[in-house]
């Protein structure tokens, strides 16, 4: 394990002084609010995630891990509580502002890659940045090529995303998530559909990004081996966080 990931290292102590990337204060989330079927999934979660942290989220199915990730990723809104991304209070923002913040600050990798078959590998990686506008296409292309090279897929840059293997597709999805150089990378069981070798490769990719750019990573996984290789482990059970410890 590298020096900066040691729990008691000076670099780890420095991180504690940095402004949090994510701050959850007493976040609650209910579904079917106001109906007889109303159910509370998250019961007052407090969580702080600082730049450069590599955090695993574990817990049984239905415990609220994905809901937590969706809220942190601004895809869903908390029913109560506060959520700050880079110090910005998000619960009062409208949909357009949330979309803007999400596009520029957060990268997503899902269990299924969700690449768009109509586009090549390179185009899939470029797409989010092209959509956000205001960036010259040549610069986007250069950045996308560098990312594709870093995930080892440069020879497949012009191949349709549908023609890649599962592991390759997930690596493209990681490159796509990083095109905006987000400070926060959210991954919802990104290795769930991959064989051990591909899962290892994708995990190492997260680790590289985390180390190279100080990107905070929040990784939902059922794999205890991968979780043990993270810096910090958060356990979510029945919508609460009973365990939050450095690995």
């Amino acid at each position, binding site marked *: 394990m590298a020096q900066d990931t040691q729990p008691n290292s000076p670099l780890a102590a420095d991180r504690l002084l940095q402004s949090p990337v994510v701050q959850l204060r007493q976040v609650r989330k209910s579904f079917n609010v106001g109906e007889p079927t109303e159910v509370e999934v998250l019961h007052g979660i407090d969580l702080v995630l600082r730049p450069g942290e590599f955090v695993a989220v574990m817990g049984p199915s239905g415990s609220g891990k994905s809901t937590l990730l969706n809220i942190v990723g601004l895809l869903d809104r908390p029913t109560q509580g506060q959520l700050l991304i880079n110090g910005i209070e998000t619960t009062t923002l409208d949909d357009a502002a949330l979309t803007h913040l999400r*596009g520029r600050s957060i990268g997503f990798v899902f269990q299924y890659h969700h690449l*768009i078959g109509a586009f090549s590998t390179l185009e899939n990686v470029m797409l989010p940045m092209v959509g956000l506008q205001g960036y010259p296409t040549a610069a986007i292309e250069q950045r996308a090529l560098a990312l594709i090279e870093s995930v080892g897929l440069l020879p497949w840059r012009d191949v349709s995303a549908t023609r890649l293997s599962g592991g390759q597709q997930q690596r493209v999805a990681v490159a796509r998530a990083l095109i905006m150089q987000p400070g926060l990378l959210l991954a919802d069981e990104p290795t769930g559909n991959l064989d051990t070798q591909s899962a290892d490769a994708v995990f190492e990719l997260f680790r590289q990004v985390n180390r190279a750019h100080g990107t905070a990573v929040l990784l939902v996984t059922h794999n205890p081996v991968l979780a043990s290789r993270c810096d910090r482990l958060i356990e979510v059970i029945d919508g609460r966080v009973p365990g939050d410890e450095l690995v």
Partner: protein
Amino acid sequence: MVLGRLQPFEWIVASRFLREGRLQSLFTLLGVAIGVAVIVFMSALMQGLQSNLVKRVLTAQPHIQVSPPKESVRLQDAQDGALHAHRIQAPLQRFHSIDQWASVLGLLRAMPEVLVASPAVTGSTFILRGATSRSLSLTAVDLSIYQQIVNLSEKIVVGQARLDAGDILIGTELAADLGVGVGDKLLVQSPTGASNHFMIVGVLDLGNKGANQRSGFIGLHSGQSLLGYPGGVTSIDITVRDVYAAEAVAQRIHAQTQLQADSWIKTNAQFFSAIQSQSLANAAIRFFVGLSVAFGIASVLVVSVVQRSKEIGILRAMGISRGQVMRVFLLQGGLMGLAGAVVGCVLGAVALKAWLHMVRTPDGSPVFIVTLHAWLLVQALLLATVTGLLAALAPALRASRLDPVVAIRG
């Protein structure tokens, strides 16, 4: 091919989505194309038919005829203010000269809608030839001006269109009934008893047996002296720029001059009503074809939204706005409409050409002239594109409102 440097995001995604679903896009495009082809073909055909009919009707008459106001009974009030009359007899309508016709003519010619205004004297006369006589509806005109309203040169069967002093043009049936031809002389007598000899300089076919049996034309000055209107005219014939605006212009003329102004629309009310019904039928066909095109595009896009919900979800997660997602689907609708319309215009033009080639009169000439105007094609392109955009509205709204969490989870 890497994403185009100058293309906006919405254009890139919309065109790629269409290209990816090639078969689906192709069938939709064909559906739109057939619809547009029907619209182009039907519209061109009906416009050709209508303009042919209108041309035939207007070829022998002015668009508007201005004449003195009808005479009416002027009632005197009784002392107590009540009117006492059991029955009012309509007055006899006598021919009058238009009061101050020269200034009225100047006023009419100054109107922007008026192309040509030609003064005329009309009246009923008799032709006396030997022991026989025929009634003659005589029109006296300044031929150089009147030709711009009714082109008599085109209607000449024998002789020439010329109306010097002492010249007369008569219909073919009348010439046959009287057994006369070009160079023969006729004695024309007015109801007042005045008479004059005229030499036939041309025989006309006015396109109607009745008109050919009773019509004749002489010079304006000859008519004024023969019919008893020295220096006066009984009507002013007018041609307007827009034949379908003739009634509105006639009403304006009446309002300004208090003279009677009858448009061809009023005098051919039944014919005009038939033309309007035809236009209405054409509009109905366009509407229903447009509607079926719209439903075709909408149904394909609704399916596309469902098929692509995960992709839409991931785009939203990556920071693509609702507006951008909406525009992606609107563009797809617009593009399908536009592309289908381009193909449809070509198909319509080919079908029209084939029809004109196949449907001919026994002598091999076309039944009527059909011209495919550029504006009709532009109209069809615009109509199909706007229809495509409107049809895409509901699917686009649905796509933009997709919850990314639900969409990604599927």
